[in-house]
């Protein structure tokens, strides 16, 4: 089948693109460090060769740039995979990873901690917030009968609204001076704080939750014609849905905890990849991960380089790119349906 062969080609190309992205993105930055010096420093840390950089400039490469680029890749991959799964489970192409209150809950946790002044607890508070919001969403969805995708989305909207309102209240009530800047940067999504621990969190999440999701491509395809259809194809509909939802929530929660709620990646990239290789999830999942990784690496590079030495939260860049693409998506849907 033509699409399968195509798929292998795309996988190789996109994987190479990710590696190339990492390699080149680390050479960008406000500090004037030549690419050769950058790679020399990285190789030196990996045990190969020596570096000609001073300890401070070496620190820029190894403590700031490299972890940030790697985190961007992992977060981009994680959000894209989560987006694909949410769109499949809810059978709604406008779904994104934040649908079940995940980003609002994480934001609430993060803002509470930011205002208490403890940046160290941020990832934990954000993750806890995401999990609590998810539980609240599912409890609400089940409170009125059987859990259906439609009810779950509505419950997620309600929980998001509530968490958002409380977050806004906290900000409004307590923010002084320009403490709102830090909060805003987190709410928009920013990779500026990504150090090696963030890389660890993001990669562990990809391995623990992302890989199992990527292996469930055929199972997701079975849902194409609905639950009944999937059941007759031998899928345990409930168990599958719950497992995928939990894995997605864990993955998204982890991503949001290190980078804030970066928008549009989980919404737009699955569609872009579908245009390339079609809707079959066995291919869509891994390729979305690869495209997501490259995309966010470059979006973050733009965020920290375009207005050098000033820095933008990456969420602004993804929104600027994502909003018109989203509008185009909506237009296509209206035309076709």
């Amino acid at each position, binding site marked *: 089948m033509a699409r399968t062969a195509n798929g292998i080609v795309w996988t190789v190309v996109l994987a190479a693109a990710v590696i190339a992205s990492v390699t080149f993105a680390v050479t960008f930055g406000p500090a004037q460090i030549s690419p050769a010096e950058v790679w020399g420093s990285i190789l030196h840390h990996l045990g190969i060769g020596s570096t000609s950089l001073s300890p401070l400039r070496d620190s820029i490469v190894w403590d700031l740039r490299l972890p940030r680029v790697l985190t961007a890749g992992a977060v981009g991959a994680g959000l894209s995979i989560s987006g694909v799964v949410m769109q499949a489970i809810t*059978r709604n192409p406008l779904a994104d990873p934040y649908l079940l209150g995940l980003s609002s809950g994480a934001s609430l946790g993060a803002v509470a901690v930011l205002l208490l002044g403890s940046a160290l607890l941020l990832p934990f508070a954000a993750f806890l917030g995401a999990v609590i919001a998810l539980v609240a969403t599912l409890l609400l969805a089940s409170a009125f009968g059987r859990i259906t995708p439609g009810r779950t989305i509505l419950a997620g909207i309600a929980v998001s609204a509530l968490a958002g309102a409380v977050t806004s209240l906290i900000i409004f009530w307590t923010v002084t001076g320009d403490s709102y800047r830090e909060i805003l940067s987190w709410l928009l999504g920013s990779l500026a704080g990504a150090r090696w621990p963030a890389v660890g969190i993001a990669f562990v999440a990809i391995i623990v939750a992302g890989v199992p999701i990527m292996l469930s491509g*055929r199972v997701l395809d*079975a849902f194409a*014609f609905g639950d009944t259809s999937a059941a*007759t194809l031998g899928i345990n509909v409930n168990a599958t849905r719950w497992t995928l939802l939990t894995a997605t929530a864990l993955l998204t929660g982890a991503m949001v905890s290190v980078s804030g709620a970066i928008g549009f990646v989980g919404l737009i990239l699955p569609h872009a990849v579908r245009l390339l290789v079609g809707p079959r999830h066995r291919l869509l999942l891994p390729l979305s991960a690869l495209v997501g990784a490259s995309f966010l690496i470059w979006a973050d590079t733009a965020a920290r380089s375009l207005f050098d030495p000033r820095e933008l939260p990456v969420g602004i860049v993804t929104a600027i790119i994502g909003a018109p693409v989203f509008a185009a998506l909506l237009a296509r849907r209206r035309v076709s349906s």
Partner: protein
Amino acid sequence: MSGLDARQITVRLDGTLIIDGIDCSAPAGAVTALIGPNGAGKSTLLHALATVLPTSGGVIRFENDDLLTMKRRSRARTIALVEQDASTELSLSVAEVVALGRIPHLGPFADESAQDRAIVRSALDTVGMADFAHRDVTGLSGGERQRVLLARSIAQEPRLLLLDEPTNHLDISAQLSTLALLHDLAVKGVTVIAALHDLTLAAGWSDYVIVLSAGHVVAAGATAATLTPRLIDDVYGVHAEIVERPGQRPTIAFSPRG
């Protein structure tokens, strides 16, 4: 025994009793038509037999297997259900949709083999959609999509094939070819149960009938003997005449009562 034998099937939906303690059976190697007025519970019964709707108690046996306790994948290799109005928003190709029918055989991780692809092609040929293999399924008409889903269930290689109003969106020639196809499958040993609302088709094309009314079986048996004018009058409230001409399939002529 071969074929399907279901006892005491009871289904409640949102608290309402749809089917009440039904016993029914369908022999292997034959086409059994499931007929009855709207709201009789045909679709519900089919979904219950396919084990996608939960039944309160009851036993469903098929060729010495207890369908309710079978493992999911084995069951999916045994039963296929063709739903009435299933559709998708995904832009899958026709061939990809039919390939979904191989999922019970492949499991989540195995790759499709040449044999799987051959089965898919053959299924498409059987329903006359081979030329549509690379078309986008979302662009098909209702009838074309119906045939694609039928091909998908054929690709499942089921021994029990359940169909919910398979002739609904089809034009007359497609209806006849679908029914001929069901007959061919039956000849190969598949147990075919099809819910039909068109009594004429039931009369001409099924070997057995199960007649439902208000959640109960009011009659069951060989079509010629069971689908009588008297029955039709009782169940549907219309006057019917079974027309038999030599060399042709039986058909029914209707007129309103009185």
